[in-house]
């Protein structure tokens, strides 16, 4: 039996099929990217720094800090800050915000637009005010 049209049908089908394969492989990069294994060292350093700050400048109770001492410590430049914390070679940004998100203290380097970083958010209070604060430590 003659099937003159079969060639055209086949060309259309294979074109659609290849387009489908291209779309799947193109999208798969974005689908699988979040599942890729990643290093956690920066995350652990950020957690260690937040623990250190809450304990070192603590005012007798967990998560309660002496705000003046903390402010004084965070007034150092980035080089001295990383040296004091023992993490030279890493870039660090530490900020204290009120619960509405306004920055009260900020220290360290400005955040890059794109970086693989460790991030920790902790909460703290001080004996001298009724305000509660958010401590954010970012390491990259």
């Amino acid at each position, binding site marked *: 039996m003659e099937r003159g049209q079969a060639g055209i049908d086949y060309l259309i089908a294979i074109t659609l099929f290849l387009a489908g394969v291209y779309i*799947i492989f193109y999208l798969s990069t974005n689908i699988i990217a979040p599942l890729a294994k990643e290093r956690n060292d920066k995350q652990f350093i950020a957690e260690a720094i937040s623990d250190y700050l809450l304990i070192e400048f603590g005012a007798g*109770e967990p*998560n*309660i800090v002496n705000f003046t001492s903390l402010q004084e410590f965070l007034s150092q430049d980035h080089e001295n800050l990383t040296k004091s914390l023992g993490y030279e070679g890493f870039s660090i940004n530490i900020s204290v915000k009120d*619960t509405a998100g306004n920055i009260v203290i900020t220290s360290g380097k400005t955040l890059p637009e794109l970086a693989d970083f460790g991030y920790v958010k902790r909460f*703290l209070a001080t004996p*001298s*005010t*009724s305000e509660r604060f958010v401590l954010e430590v970012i390491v990259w």
Partner: protein
Amino acid sequence: MVKDIVRIPADDKAQTFTFEAAMALMIIALVIVFIVSAIPLTPLTSSAANVQVENILESYGSDILNVMCYKSDVESFSPMKSALLYWDGEPMYGGVYDYPYSAPLKTFLQQTLETEGIAYNIEIGYFTIINGTKTFRTAIFVWNGYPSDNSVTVSKIIPLYDSDPANQGIKTLTFDIDGNTTNLYNIIEVRLTLWRM
């Protein structure tokens, strides 16, 4: 002279079928890899891979209870205690309601948990007397539904004193543990359960 057109017999398509099969196999393999990798990330299923998420929630919960149960030098009571002292004992659904002295707790929970997509329940454990027997009971303070498998619960003890005001609040649920011998009225346990939505 017209030449005969050479026709491709159907049997000669084996090569293209093999190509399609190879592509299909790669896609199936990709899907299997994706499914195997994605299983531990199911948000409501508890697994070893959720440990880091649970650790973060535990840290969050401990921090929140610590700062909410802390009374600074310029406050009469901690935000948690003042909200409990004036609470009417009825469960609050979806978050802390508006009533006297509830605002600091309500605002903090909204800004720290609700905006972060973290659901929470707060329950209060207290001692009461039922038929002459001291019994430990639990009351719902804030309820947002049943927690998922990988939820985290943190708790803190708050002491109540005879000198604390607002006898219509949490103090009505429990009793004066030592009569009026000391200023201690009783203790309550605040349980905060957190889970990712």
